[in-house]
């Protein structure tokens, strides 16, 4: 049985310093066993500016057993599966302890975004790229952040479609949208004035 009284306290604690940490945890429904976490991409990394959603499931043995966490937002990182969002992090496995919390786990995931460990990969393809062609890795990771982890990137295809229907070339629409951070109105202004 999940210790729901504790989960309640964790949620309160987390919402108290949400402003400072930027880390959010909220229940999916009345049942506290399913939650959603959100972490901001660390500054100075290819994930900067992104907001990453993490699916959290609490096993019956919580807090003795680790919470199950995986990325919902697609992310390009050696220790996170680019396909399934599975995370390779010791504290989510055998190094978990009841002394840790959902918040400290999310902080650790945020730290993992800052400091990938390509020698202990979850996604071998990304890890190979990280080790062999770091610049391309950074480019891809940044592109994925732009495409999947920004609020403005939601519905990007619809924006592209609308602007293309107005008669602009698709490649130009895409590059303009990217340049203005996905703001459809700004992109239209720029396209019209060019």
């Amino acid at each position, binding site marked *: 049985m999940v*210790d729901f009284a*504790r989960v309640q*306290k*964790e949620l309160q*604690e987390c919402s108290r310093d949400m402003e400072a940490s930027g880390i959010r945890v909220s229940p999916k429904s009345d049942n506290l066993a399913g939650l959603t976490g959100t972490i901001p991409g660390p500054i100075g990394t290819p994930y900067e500016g992104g907001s990453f959603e993490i699916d959290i499931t609490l096993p019956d043995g919580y807090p*003795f057993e680790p919470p199950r966490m995986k990325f919902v937002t697609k992310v390009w990182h050696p220790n996170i*599966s680019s*396909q*399934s969002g*599975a995370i*390779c992090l*010791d504290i989510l*496995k*055998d*190094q*978990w*302890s*009841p*002394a*840790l*919390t959902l918040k400290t786990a999310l902080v650790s995931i945020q730290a993992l975004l800052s400091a990938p460990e390509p020698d*202990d*990969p*979850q*996604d*071998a*393809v990304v890890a*190979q*790229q990280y080790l062999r062609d770091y610049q391309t890795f950074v480019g891809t990771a940044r592109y994925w952040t732009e495409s999947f982890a920004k609020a403005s990137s939601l519905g990007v295809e619809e924006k592209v479609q609308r602007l293309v229907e107005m008669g602009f070339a698709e490649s130009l629409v895409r590059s303009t949208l990217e340049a203005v951070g996905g703001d459809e109105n700004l992109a239209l202004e720029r396209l019209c004035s060019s």
Partner: protein
Amino acid sequence: MQNQEGPVADGEKESSESLQALPPNEFEIEDWANFVDDDVMQQQSAIHAEEAKKVPFVGDKEPLSMLAAGYESGSPILLEKIKVLGQQYAAIRRTRGDGNCFFRSFMFSYLEHILESQDQAEVDRIKGNIEECRKMLQTLGYADFTFEDFFVLFLEQLESVIPGNETSISHDELIIQSQDQSVSDYVVMFFRFVTSAEIQKRAEFFEPFVLGLTNASVEQFCKSSVEPMGEESDHVHITALSDALGVPIRVVYLDRSSCDSGTGSVSVNHHDFIPTSVANPGAKGDTTEAIKPFIMLLYRPGHYDILYPK
């Protein structure tokens, strides 16, 4: 203990090696990578479940001869040592070998001692130490809700072994409670918090010992080798718990080493962990030799059980 953990560790190692050996464009490894993590967790819990059937968290008291029976076809040194052990000790109580055996042994042994001695002064004393640990954890920055439940549960256990309370329990009930996972695991976690707080409080003192065991900092050591359930205890853990709670602990070592004293007969080593607060009582002027631990544990490589003196 080590045998049980072996296959899990090996499995992990093998899988990460083969993962790296794969060609970069093999997308199937995604599933495989996930399978490995789940597989390791499942394997681990399966082992735990299997172990649980064999030995309860705390077993029944057995005469020392039962210990010898397990070695009959084994090492003659061990049989010889068990004979020597029999001169001072009468019985053994086994605990489950799941990496928490030191803490479970300590828990049962301590509560049983209070139940039998009815030492109210000792209960009052340890409560003071527990309060200090609570403050230390707060100072170290632990959120109250992470440790509070574990402290409350241990204090309840402590109250229950003092008679005259509404919640008082018998010896049989103590055994039943100690075999209940929701009690035993909580108390283990309480001890892990107390141990971790003491090590971090006296980081400078513990640092060289920690460096002798791992390459980690004191804080990392606490996070990775003290606080997670199932992490085995070493002399660092025992020293810290004994110091923090002010409870002396004797560990008797039963291994194959033949430490003969020159006379050709074997002897059995033991070490008494005497808390700093007891060993240096200040003005009182007591001597260390006078202190005899009431908690006695038998250590065989990788595992602790409870020992009973004659």
